[in-house]
């Protein structure tokens, strides 16, 4: 079963996951193409960040699991389901350096994980453990869905939401640290208590790596009792060491950068001496196992297709292991390549990157020429659509509000994953150069409606 699992910070790999088998043959370029032959071949797909990807081998593994359930669902439910989820959880524990598998729950996605953590906070308000006006601090660039969740579960319950505005473009992590510290101080003034911090590990738009370890330390120093790190993009993209990071909750999607099919994610909940905290986390979809702990509750939320949660083992042994240095190798090469490509693009367009290489993961923010006239979120979306339809390039674009006429207002978030080739980015480079040549502006897209 499990062949060469990536070693991580010297943690022991459990016996269940260890099984001496011969090293898998390295994947050839033609095999790699074959693994992703289901991708639309006409598209330069440089947006792995949004929806991830899934190799053919894993799609096949997922089908096997799906058919196993359909074949005899009662038997599967009683005898196979929980051990299979446990296998996934054990693997995740290893990958992120968690202490106990009890700390790992498998859920659909980071959005669900956020709902779990935030609903838990709602109950603290309901029970008056938290009082109206108590606050939650989060980044201004937090993912849109998480902000909505904060509104739905925190603001509605009487909590106050403090947003930390981070500079972008950015030159170093210290800028983030000082902004965070500053906002925290302001937030705490007048004696307001901050109950929860939600910190992205890698922000979505604009995408940068956040110095979470330092921010968690600051939060602890300031007496914030609960810290939730939203690492939606992190696993398979950058190193995760939850013990080192020190947060109470950490979530990441397995389908973005770790090759699982849509969709699967984990929520890590540090075992705590605070009973109220550990015992009281619940999945919002309540089923038979309510009260038996979040991992158990999450493993059954009614009849569902759980197959996406079952294939992590195959991902590691049948796919990742075929790459040099496994997942570490993939992460390192993706990062190197995306930085190299970002530098190529900015050189060609005469723009800049939004962040220095060390703050880029397998994604980078690349300034778009200002003459394109990106004046709003709407323009950014329209330009994205235009690039998709007319140039067959799939890339998300971030709009940044400025108060002068010459600053960069648009940044493309380019991704690099194992299936990408340099031609994908040449096509993007040339598309933008053509737009500039043609005197294109986003205002033109308004007229086309």
């Amino acid at each position: 079963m499990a062949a060469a699992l990536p070693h991580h910070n010297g943690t022991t790999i459990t016996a269940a996951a260890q099984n001496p088998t011969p090293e898998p043959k390295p994947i050839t370029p033609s095999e790699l193409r074959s693994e992703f032959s289901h991708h639309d071949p006409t598209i330069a797909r440089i947006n792995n960040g949004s929806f991830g990807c899934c190799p053919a081998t894993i799609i096949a593994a997922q089908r096997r699991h799906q058919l196993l359930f359909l074949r005899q669902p009662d038997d599967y439910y009683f005898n196979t389901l929980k051990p299979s989820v446990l296998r996934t959880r054990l693997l995740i524990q290893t990958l992120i350096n968690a202490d106990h598998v009890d700390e790992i729950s498998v859920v659909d996605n980071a959005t669900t994980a956020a709902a779990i953590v935030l609903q838990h906070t709602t109950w603290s308000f309901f029970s008056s453990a938290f009082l109206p006006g108590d606050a939650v601090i989060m980044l201004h660039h937090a993912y849109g869905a998480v902000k909505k969740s904060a509104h739905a579960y925190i603001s509605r319950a009487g909590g106050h939401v403090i947003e930390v505005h981070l500079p972008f473009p950015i030159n170093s992590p210290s800028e983030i640290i000082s902004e965070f510290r500053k906002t925290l101080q302001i937030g705490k003034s007048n004696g307001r208590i901050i109950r929860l911090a939600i910190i992205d590990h890698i922000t979505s738009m604009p995408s940068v790596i956040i110095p979470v370890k330092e921010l968690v330390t600051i939060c602890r120093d300031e007496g914030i009792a609960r810290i939730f790190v939203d690492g939606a993009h992190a696993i398979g993209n950058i190193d995760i060491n939850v013990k080192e990071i020190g947060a109470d909750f950490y979530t990441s999607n397995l389908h973005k950068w770790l090759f699982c099919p849509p969709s699967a994610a984990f929520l890590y909940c540090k075992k705590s001496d605070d009973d109220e905290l550990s015992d009281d986390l619940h999945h919002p979809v309540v089923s038979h196992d309510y009260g038996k702990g979040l991992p158990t509750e999450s493993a059954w939320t009614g009849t569902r297709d759980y197959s996406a949660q079952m294939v992590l083992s195959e991902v590691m042994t049948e796919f990742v292991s075929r790459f040099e240095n496994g997942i570490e190798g993939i992460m390192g090469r993706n990062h190197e390549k995306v930085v190299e490509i970002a530098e190529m693009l900015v050189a060609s367009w005469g723009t800049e990157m939004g962040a220095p290489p060390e703050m880029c993961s397998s994604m980078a923010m690349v300034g778009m020429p200002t003459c394109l006239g990106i004046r709003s979120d709407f323009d950014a979306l329209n330009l994205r659509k235009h690039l998709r339809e007319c140039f067959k390039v799939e890339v998300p674009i971030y709009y940044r509000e400025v108060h002068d006429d010459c600053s960069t207002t648009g940044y493309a978030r380019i991704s690099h994953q194992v299936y990408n080739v340099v031609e994908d980015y040449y096509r993007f480079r040339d598309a933008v150069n053509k737009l500039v040549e043609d005197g294109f502006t986003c205002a033109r897209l308004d007229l086309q409606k």
Partner: protein
Amino acid sequence: MMDPPPGVEDPRAPAVNGDTNHVSKKLKLSFITDSEIREEFAHHQSGIARINNGSFGSCPASIIAAQKIWQLRFLRQPDDFFFNHLQRQILHSRTIIKDLINADHVDEVSIVDNATTAAAIVLQHVGWAFAEGRFQKGDAVVMLHCAFQAVKKSIEAYVTRAGGSVIVVHLPFPVNSNEEIIAEFRKGLARGRANGKKVRLAIIDHITSMPCVVIPARELVNICREEGVERVFVDAAHAIGSVHVDVKDIGADFYVSNLHKWFFCPPSVAFLYCRKSPVSPDLHHPVVSHEYGNGLAIESAWIGTRDYSSQLVIPEVLEFTNRFEGGLEGIRKRNHEKVVEMGQMLAKAWGTNLGSPPEMCPSMVMIGLPSRLGVLCDDDALNLRSHLRDHFGVEVPIHFQVPIDGEIGAMDGDGCVTGYVRISHQVYNTLDDYIKLRDAITQLLQDGATCKMLQTE
């Protein structure tokens, strides 16, 4: 030919996705053959008498194939699918459902994962009402004693925890008529309200799970209205594809049914019908995403990156049901007839009775197990079920009916009948499946086996 629901011609709106190869009134030259049916379910484990369609449903091969096409469309170019296709297709599915269940507006139809999720939506809404002072501590929620365990837990998680109280209504089983159920419900509700509690919500099953009986939902909803119950939620997890569903006729505020149980969808998909009302804007999916505040149906159509393919095959499923004589109506009528026939065959062979009269059975029937088997607790029922699976290749759920104090329940020649099997009939079942069960039980009796002995396995 399938009778379309009242007031509907073709449930598919060609304008929605431009497909013109879905036609509800196609002239049928031939219906699906037995051998084609076998092929459609060839992925079911052979050698197992699969008489438990009720728990997890079933999905034909052509729908699995259709689902795969949708899955690959997403994987092929997910951004394009997300921006240009997904919402349109979900709306198409919702429109088909709206017509199937006779809802007034497609806004009233949300698609969710399963009935368990629907319960969480409705009950979370109740929880907020308590927390925000619209409901007072002690205000009540009514549920049936035999409500599905997940729903009971959801009530605990969202109602009890928020300060609400719970009125539990016991319905008789075995049962002889709708009148018994109606009378018991009326009594139970009145008793529960005796101390003047305000009843904010009643949760009524349309078809109870265990023990399985068709409940006269419309009558119970009327009683709730008469008794001043503010809102009624009908948990019809088993209903669509097994009984006629007309949400306006039933008249509840909320109605949920799973589509993967009796409507051939892959796991998993359900609809939650919410009658338009002032509280509609306040119903939310608990997994909050970008569409929060845009209405439950829109919220439910995007709860983060997921595989939504099971929600997209509803048009193909409708086509599948139309390959059968009488379409969905024909399927459920024949399932009902067959399951009653099988039930009577088994009851006769074992010297026991059905748990309810045929008209109160959907595509499932409860049949008393011989008392000699000694099903004396829930664990006995579970052990016997495992034993039947492992040693006889029969998959059938077993219910332990707690004897009610002071009442003599069903009896057979040897004592009190406390165990019941719940047999299902779906299009893939054959006579052999039930003969296998009949003979398995007969064998156990011959061997003098009791559940107590099975404990040691």
